[in-house]
């Protein structure tokens, strides 16, 4: 039994072993589909999510587990119950793992200190989203064989992105060069210490990338004046067809979803030949099966 609280702390060999396991969990793979037979996995989602929750649910069910789906809406949270009481109560019903999504950074870490079952971070605040990074790395590894020496460019709201943090750590661990790009207001101080390079302007770095990962732009950041308008953001950082044409031959386009079509990604690029967005989603189930197997 172990936790997956973040990519931080995972060694390259552990990440690679997990990705190797994920290969076996692809459709038609050699992994057993009854590893979690008779066990219960609890999806504990304090924050809305469609694809991560569905993906974990699919992963658990196809390993033979029963899935308890708990959401904050309509729960005792509205009556003032604390995070710890909630997770302890759910744990008391007997799941082998809690898959936790929460809007506060560190919430799964707090839970992990107080429960005995495995805690899997399904996204905490602006901290980490490790299963997303693992499925992104898995997708790239399947395309490239290895990430060593490749350049991954992450574009957009780095400050508020848990996907960016986990991906920087994961891609770096696997030998890639990572560059983050966004307006200075959305580049957190000291991000370089995670091992990434920083660029403010997209056009000069775009041709260097073997993969471009566009992040979802949360439109409420405009009202907080992190940038003047989505129009201007899109003009400076949106990946449209004309920009995409300047990418390296064979370079890939990624997105953790859900996409703001026409803002960070033009529809033609999102659905174009470079896009591996739906592969990411499909691979997510295999990677999460491997995560559940390793943690439980």
């Amino acid at each position, binding site marked *: 039994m172990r936790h997956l609280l973040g990519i931080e702390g995972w060694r390259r060999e552990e990440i690679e072993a997990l990705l190797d396991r994920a290969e076996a969990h692809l459709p038609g793979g050699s992994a057993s589909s009854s590893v979690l037979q008779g066990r219960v996995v609890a999806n504990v989602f304090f924050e809305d999510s469609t694809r991560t929750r569905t993906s974990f649910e699919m992963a658990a069910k196809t390993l033979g587990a029963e899935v308890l789906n708990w959401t904050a809406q309509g729960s005792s949270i509205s009556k003032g119950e604390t995070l*710890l009481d909630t997770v302890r109560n759910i744990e008391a019903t007997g799941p082998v793992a809690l898959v936790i999504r929460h809007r506060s*950074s560190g919430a799964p870490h*707090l839970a992990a200190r107080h429960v005995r079952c495995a805690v899997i971070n399904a996204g905490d605040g602006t*901290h980490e989203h490790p299963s997303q990074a693992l499925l992104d790395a898995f997708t790239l590894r399947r395309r490239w064989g290895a990430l060593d020496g490749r350049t991954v460019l992450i574009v957009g709201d780095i400050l508020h992105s848990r996907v960016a943090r986990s991906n920087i750590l994961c891609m770096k661990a696997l030998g890639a060069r990572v560059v983050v790009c966004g307006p200075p207001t959305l580049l*957190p*101080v000291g991000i370089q210490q995670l091992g990434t390079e920083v660029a403010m302007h997209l056009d000069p770095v775009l041709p260097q990338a073997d993969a471009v990962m566009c992040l979802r732009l949360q439109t409420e950041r405009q009202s907080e004046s992190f940038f003047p308008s989505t129009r201007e953001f899109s003009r400076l950082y949106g990946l449209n067809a004309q920009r995409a044409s300047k990418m390296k031959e064979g370079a890939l386009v990624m997105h953790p979803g859900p996409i703001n079509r026409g803002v960070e990604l033009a529809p033609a690029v999102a659905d174009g030949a470079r896009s591996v967005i739906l592969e990411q989603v499909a691979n997510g189930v295999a990677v999460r099966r491997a995560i559940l197997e390793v943690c439980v």
Partner: protein
Amino acid sequence: MSPPVLFSRGRVIDPRNYVDSVRDVLVRDGVIAEVSEAPLSVPGAQVVEAQGHWVLPGFIDLHVHLREPGEEGKETILTGCQAAVAGGFTGVVAMPNTKLVNDSSLVTELVLSRARAANLCHVYPAGAITKGLKGEEMAEMGELVSAGCVCITDDGRPVMNAGLMRRALQYARLFDLPVMVHEEDLTLSGKGAMTEGPTATRLGLLPIPPSAEVAMVARDLVLLEETGGRLHIAHVSCEGSVRLLREAKRRGLHVTSEVTPHHFTLDDAAVGEYDTHAKMNPPLRLRRDVEALREALADGTIEAIATDHAPHGVLDKQVEFDKGINGVVGLETALGLTLALVHEGVLSARRAVEVLTDGPAKAFGLPGGHLKPGAPADIALVDPEAKWTVDAGRFFSKSRNTPFHGRSLKGRVVQTWVGGRCVFDAGQIKESR
């Protein structure tokens, strides 16, 4: 009438009176009667063998939250005073952000009457700058002063309205009252949970830039220069603020300031893996800020150590980091952490004692803080070599929220005397009656 008390052959450190040598201190009728280089022989006196110990003026803490009235589950005036005397403090300034806010004589009188009932140390109430700490209308300063308030502050909250802050500084001149400020531009700190820097970025916690503090320090120094009066800057935490303070003092502005033991000891790395015991406002800063604070304490830019003793319950801290309440307790660990600066060679023993005693007393014009004959016999007897480990479970404070649990410290309070009466001895509070 209690017998005279003779503190025999201790190292007396009394910065105000330039004393730092082995002396005898004689206490009669609650006041210092004599400080003598030669051994004294006083028939009938109670003798306190102080050899190997430091005999110091009782410490004065300009910044303490006693939580009463309103949050007696966290602390009461009695338990707060017990924690104070256990830490060698003989006087504490009680912040007004209680529930009821201390913005009227009624609350001031309540605090004073509870303090009299506790009968352990001096409690000096601080009144609010604005009614209800709302930052909208000035509280009745004259009434607060008459009732016994020694300063005004909206501590915990800045006065964001610069016009109102300017008038508060002007009006406080009427009473020669220090105006204590919590410096935070809320538009800069926003929803931030810890200081801006690599740790916040790694943990994905929204950052509070140092400018949130420094910009307000700058604003208030500009206002002070225009208005005159007395400004006291609470819990200074960053290098930028120190720089501004140093420059303001050079130009002769009447500004004083304080630093907390947690800010001069810990940097942002103490947040570790979302440890809410390291969550406070202002937040723990970067190492270079810690170094700047230490230097400022040593060179006189900052004149007081204050604990910002902020008791909270377990439930306030055992939550998600961004939801955790700010603040740590500090009265019982302040001396050990201050002496760590002496052991590390940052401060001389004399300077360490000065910033716990004379510095704060002078900043607010409080009695005590020194041992001149005629002064109140408020004394801390300290064993500077005693090694001990912080055990939050043994605090006299009702609360346990400290980032220093388990830390080894050297230097401990052996006895605390207030007005010539021993109120704390060998780890025990002495009952007053």
